[in-house]
Structure formats: structure tokens, C-alpha cells
């Protein structure tokens, strides 16, 4: 394994324009370094890639920077949640950062990623096509295969990473989506972030076969050490090449979450604190990259510590900015329920019945009358622009709906049509 002894850290290169403070610890050094992954890959119905991963000082330092930022952000989110500034449910990702940075390093901004609710850090790392925030476990995987379908349809040589957890791996819709992806050779990569617990249920209590990379059966799979960012990068690169040629592949990222399932879950009733601290000591992803950086002399211990302090400041500044942001106005309540445009004038403000005709309907009334008079035998559809169906929506009826509509409008926020 080649080792560089040259120090090449440029401390003063500012990060590109962003809201954050100047970032240090960057370098433009792209001298290749070869690193062995901590563990070999295990393949299912496929020859696994090599353990030797090509990287560069630039990449290693960027891994450290990004993971330190993610870690800090998640810890800050913990405090914000306890201070009731973040509300609802809050699912933290600390421990799993390597999956996010490794994936980012392997793909382009045109590739899609879709994930569920443990998604703060994926968003941080990635480009434009990150779909996230899905609350129903497993529901994002068929969507991911749909993204892959569209990619194949438009022949754009991009792939989709559909991410899910070990808990979601037991959802039927996953297997349905995988079957279709395999039938049609879609460029879908199913990534199981196996952190070994589906909320309070350990993987062995939920899955007859916790070898998630094998459960695609006819679809090849790869088991990856998800705490090793370079292994993740290698696997994602490999998977992308495979998916573009041969259809779906499953990646199982063996990873771990330090926090509970969400902030409502202490995370200690179903696993021991020894287990958590053990993983932190043996397999922490940031520590691993730190060791690599130090052993290759890319930065000193002090520089890394200083950087962590900087990151903390950066996150604090972002929090301060977020606190200053105004809450949405009540007039935004109905924004984006529907997309405005053809056929949606009726539905736009209250989302249901209206008691007054819209402008379109007033204009179309002439057309409707004309059509009625001309006794068309073919049904008038919306495309014709003067639908009878739409007209019926507007016929005034003295029902409770009108009354409730009327009362609600007093109380409703600004419901003028926008």
C-alpha cells in the first residue's frame, strides 16, 4: 500500500460561495492513494469488487469534512428537538454518515437518490435529485424503481439509489418493485442501510433471513461495511456500472445508529450501552477516516480538531439563521395542494366544493350552453374546455356544505384564489 509522506494540506482555500463560514482543511491534491477496505465485500450471485480502493488526499479530507459536519448537525438536531424547536418525530443519522459520503463520492449529480425519514445527511451531501422525507416505511422503494424506470425510458445513463432500512426490508412492496425492476432491467440500486434495528425490534426478530443482500434472490447483491466510507464508495461505483448494464442490484450497508430510532426512543431498552459504545470505539466512520488522514500525513491531529470546532461554529450559525426565519403565513395553507393549471380552477382554494363559479366557468358557460344546444352526442370532456361535469360542480344547492363552507370561510385564512 503506497503511502505519501508529503504534506499537502492547503489551509487557506476558502470553500465556494455558500452561507457558511470559510472552510479550511481542503486541498486540491489528487495524488492517488490506494486503501484497503476494512473488510472484504461479500457477493450474492456476483463477483464482488476488489478491496483496494483508489482515493486521493482531496477526497479523504472531504470525507472528513462532510462527515464531521453531518455528525455535528445531528447532535445539534438532538438539542434542538429537546428544546422543542424541531418538532414531530426526529430520526437521527449519526453513526451512518459513511453511507452518505461514500455514495456521494461514487455518483454524479444526475443520479437519483431516494430515501425515507432518516435523511438529514443524505440531503446535505447530495445534488439535485434527492427525494426524501417519506414517513411510511418502505413506500419509497417502488418510487425509486419508478425513477429508474424514467431513467431507462429517457436513456440518460443515470441510476437511482433507492434506500431503505432493515425494518423496511420486510415490506412486500419492496419485492414487488424489485421483481419489476429485474424484469425490465431498470437501473435501480436498492440500498439497505442495515443498522440492525427496526425501531425496537432487532433484525433477527423481524427477518427469517437477515442477510438482506441475498434476499433479492435472482437479483445480485453485495454486502458492504457501511462504516467504511471508501468501501461504500467502491460498492456504489460498482453497483452503478452493474445497474446500467444488467439491471437491479442490492447493496446491504452494514451500519449502525448511535441514537434511538427517533428522539422519542431512548434507544437503550432493546440494546446495551456497551454495544453502542463498542461500535463507537471500533467502527466509528469518522474515526476511521481520521486515522487514514493521520497515517497518510494529510493533516495533523490539531488541524482536524480545529476543523471540528469550525464545523460547530458553522452549524451554530446555520441554526441562528434558521431561528430567524419567519414561519409560513396562513395564506400558504393551500399552496401546492394541487398544481394550478388546466382543470384545476375549481379545486384550487378550498380543495373541494365551491359555492361560486370560477372565472373559467363563467366564461365557459356560454360554451356549455352552446354545446348543449347543438346536442352533441359525444361526451364533452375537459379537453374540450367547457365540460358539463365541471358545470355541475357549481350548481348552487342549499345543502349543509354551502353553510359549512360559508362558516368556514369566516374562519378560513385568506382563501382568495391564487
Amino acid at each position: 500500500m503506497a503511502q505519501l509522506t508529503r504534506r499537502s494540506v492547503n489551509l487557506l482555500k476558502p470553500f465556494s460561495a455558500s452561507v457558511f463560514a470559510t472552510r479550511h482543511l481542503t486541498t486540491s491534491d489528487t495524488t492517488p492513494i490506494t486503501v484497503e477496505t476494512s473488510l472484504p465485500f461479500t457477493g450474492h450471485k456476483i463477483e464482488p469488487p476488489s478491496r483496494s480502493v483508489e482515493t486521493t488526499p482531496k477526497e479523504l479530507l472531504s470525507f472528513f469534512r462532510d462527515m464531521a459536519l453531518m455528525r455535528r448537525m445531528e447532535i445539534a438536531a438532538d438539542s434542538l428537538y429537546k428544546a422543542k424547536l424541531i418538532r414531530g418525530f426526529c430520526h437521527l443519522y449519526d453513526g451512518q454518515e459513511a453511507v452518505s459520503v461514500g455514495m456521494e463520492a461514487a455518483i454524479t449529480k444526475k443520479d437519483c437518490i431516494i430515501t425515507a425519514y432518516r435523511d438529514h445527511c443524505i440531503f446535505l451531501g447530495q445534488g439535485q435529485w434527492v427525494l426524501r422525507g417519506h414517513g411510511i416505511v418502505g413506500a419509497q422503494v417502488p418510487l425509486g424503481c419508478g425513477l429508474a424506470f424514467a431513467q431507462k425510458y429517457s436513456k440518460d445513463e443515470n441510476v437511482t439509489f433507492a434506500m431503505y432500512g432493515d425494518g423496511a426490508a420486510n415490506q412486500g412492496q419492496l419485492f414487488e418493485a424489485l421483481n419489476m425492476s429485474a424484469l425490465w432491467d431498470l437501473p435501480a440500486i436498492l440500498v439497505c442501510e442495515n443498522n440492525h434495528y427496526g425501531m425496537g425490534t432487532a433484525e433477527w426478530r423481524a427477518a427469517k433471513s437477515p442477510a438482506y443482500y441475498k434476499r433479492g434472490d435472482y437479483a445480485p447483491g453485495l454486502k458492504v461495511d457501511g462504516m467504511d466510507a471508501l468501501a461504500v464508495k467502491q460498492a456504489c461505483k460498482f453497483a452503478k456500472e452493474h445497474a446500467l448494464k444488467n439491471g437491479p442490484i442490492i447493496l446491504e450497508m452494514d451500519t449502525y445508529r448511535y441514537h434511538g430510532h427517533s428522539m422519542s426512543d431512548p434507544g437503550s431498552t432493546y440494546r446495551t450501552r456497551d454495544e453502542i459504545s463498542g461500535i463507537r470505539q471500533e467502527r466509528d466512520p469518522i474515526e476511521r477516516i481520521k486515522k487514514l488522514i493521520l497515517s497518510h500525513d494529510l493533516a495533523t491531529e490539531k488541524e482536524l480538531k480545529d476543523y471540528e470546532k469550525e464545523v460547530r461554529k458553522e452549524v451554530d450559525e446555520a441554526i441562528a439563521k434558521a431561528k430567524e426565519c419567519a414561519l409560513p403565513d396562513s395564506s400558504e395553507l393551500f399552496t401546492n395542494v394541487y398544481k394550478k393549471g388546466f382543470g384545476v380552477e375549481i379545486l384550487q382554494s378550498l380543495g373541494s366544493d365551491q359555492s361560486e363559479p370560477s372565472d373559467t366557468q363563467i366564461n365557459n358557460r356560454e360554451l356549455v350552453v352552446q354545446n348543449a344546444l347543438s346536442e352533441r352526442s359525444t361526451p364533452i370532456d375537459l379537453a374540450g374546455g367547457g365540460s358539463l361535469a365541471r358545470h355541475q360542480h357549481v350548481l348552487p344547492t342549499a345543502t349543509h356544505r354551502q353553510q359549512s363552507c360559508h362558516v368556514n370561510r369566516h374562519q378560513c385564512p385568506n382563501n382568495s384564489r391564487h
Partner: protein
Amino acid sequence: MAAMLRSVGVASASFPLADHSNKLSTFSVCSLPVIRSERSPISDPIRGTRMTGKVITKAVAAQAENAASAASKPGHELLLFEALREGLEEEMDRDPRVCVMGEDVGHYGGSYKVTKGLADKYGDLRVLDTPIAENSFTGMAVGAAMTGLRPIVEGMNMGFLLLAFNQISDNCGMLHYTSGGQFTIPTVIRGPGGVGRQLGAEHSQRLESYFQSIPGIQMVACSTPYNAKGLMKAAIRSENPVVLFEHVLLYNLKERIPDEEYVLSLEEAEMVRPGEHVTILTYSRMRYHVMQAAKTLVNKGYDPEVIDIRSLKPFDLYTIGNSVKKTHRVIIVEECMRTGGIGASLTAAINENFHDYLDAPIVCLSSQDVPTPYAGTLEEWTVVQPAQIVAAVEQICQ
């Protein structure tokens, strides 16, 4: 508040299961204690059940406890989730066929602690930790019920049960009919739903509006520890599939409930506050918004009658009808969305049955037809607030 009881004679009897070829071995269970909360079946002209008995109004006391007097009061105090657990445990003790299945209900104790401690007591099979596979385990529950078990399916959040919609609708609801009466499906499907505190759109679902059309199921919504326990027990004992709607925000309500065993009727509404001027029909969490509005209204000189309808399917049109005949004005306050909610159906039912008694059109206050926003301010605007209820009463009483 004590329920009416008669002494229970405990006798063993063997209950053969439904008449079909594949039978499980018969179980010995205690004969059903004759416990009714109040009165006999209500009338529902639409659905054609017979009308007997009369309404006994019963306000649910939710008064502040005084430490000195607490000891001398009958009953015991507990939180709503504990009341649910008590009801569940009593039924599991009583009938070995009752079992629970759901995500993290066993070792974890339930995400809202309703099943806490039960797995230790009854074992892993009776309190079954399922994988995250709602469609399948709901289906499994139906299958188990067909052969004599009495499973209780917990949706960790009601919204997750959308994944099981087919099982609930076609199998739970329809199998008794499509099998010509050969199979009963005595399942209980329960879980927290409703709009919480900024849980986001997917975790703020009100499934009662989606399920209400399914023929063959019954739906009830609990709102106090007292009715939570009583409805849980009734739902478990029912031979029909019952969906028991709990609310995320009501689990920590505290109340004093009787020590004696009691079961409530699944088809009864609850008179919360008798009054003269207007009938306010509500259920679940909105009951509390209504009661808050009622305080303001009383100060303003109004006398609202508040009824917690509890039974969402079928409606207790007997209690509701009597109220309408008295006040002649109806306001419905619900958490469902305006379109196709419980309020919409209830409005239609009241209009059809009691039109002559109404002095004003029914007012239905519902949530807005939007996915529940995460932003706190918008979420507040989505749901009916007490001020809106006050305004509606003032307007309808003009």
C-alpha cells in the same frame, strides 16, 4: 359515574367455535358477565334496528383531584393509555383466544405503552412482535380470526394501516358476508391517529373517513380513560371487526375510573354536557376543543349540549335525535377533512332523519382539505380551533 353492574357468576362453559369444518379445539371461557353500561340497543331508522330503552345522560367527570379526598373516592386514577392496557389485560385474562399483534408491541412495550408488560405476562405468541408488514399481518389476523382466535391488530400509527386497506376492507369487513355467515372475524384494529403536534402529513391521518364506507366493520373512537377501557373491552368481545380509533394527543389524559369491571356499548354516544340551545356533536380530540369552547360559550350566556358520538359507524341516531329534537340546532365538530369525513355522513344522516326538527342548516366544522402541514402555525389553521366553534355557535343561535 359508576357503571351499572350486576354480580357476575363465573361459570365454565365450552364454546364450540363457528360451524365450519376446520375447527380448533374448543376453549373454556367464563360465561359473559352481564354488564351493560346503561341501556339497551339504540334505534337507527336507516339501519333498522329496534328502538328500546331511553337515554340516561351521563357526564364524564374530569375534575381536578384533591389529594386529601383522593383516597376516599371510589375507583382508581390512571392515564388513558393505562386504561386501554387495563381493558386489554382484563380481556386477555378472561379469554385465552385474545392475542395482540403489531410492531414493537411485545418486548418494546408498544410505542405508546399500551401493551407494556403484556409480553412478559402472556408470552411472545400472544403479544406478537411483527415485522414491518402491515398488509400481511393484518391479513394474518383475519385468517387467525376465521378459525377462532380474537386478534387485536395494532397499527403503530393508524396511517400505517393504509397499507392494509385491502385486508381491512375486503377481508375483515366482507368475509362474514361473502362466506354466507360461515366465518366471523372478531378482530379489533386499533392505534393512534389524528393530528398530533407537527408530526407531518403522513403521520396525521384520520382514517375514520376512509374506512367508514366499508360494510361489515364497526368503528368507535375513544376520548377518555373511562370510555377507552370500556370500548376496548367491548371491541374485543364483539363478534364483528371493530376499528378502535385512539388519538395521539390523548394518551396522557388522566381520569378516575371504577374499580369494578365494566364494558361500554359500541353503539352508544356519550352525553358530555346537557344543554338547551344547540347540539354539538364531536368525537375524539375535538371533544376537548368543544369543551373549551363550551366554557367560553357558557360565559357568554349560551347553553350548548355536547355529545361525544363515540360510535362512528353506526351513528347513535337515537341519542343524537333526542338532542336535535330538543335544541333544533346542530353543529358537528370533527377532525376529519371536510370532504368525505364523518361529519359529512353525519350531516346527511341527521338531515334525512330529523329534518323537520331543525331550525337551521347543520353546520359542520372540519379540518381543511390539505395534507397536514408540519409548520405549527399552518397545522393550527388546518384543525378546528375553539374560537371557530364559539363563532359557529353564536352564528347558528342568532
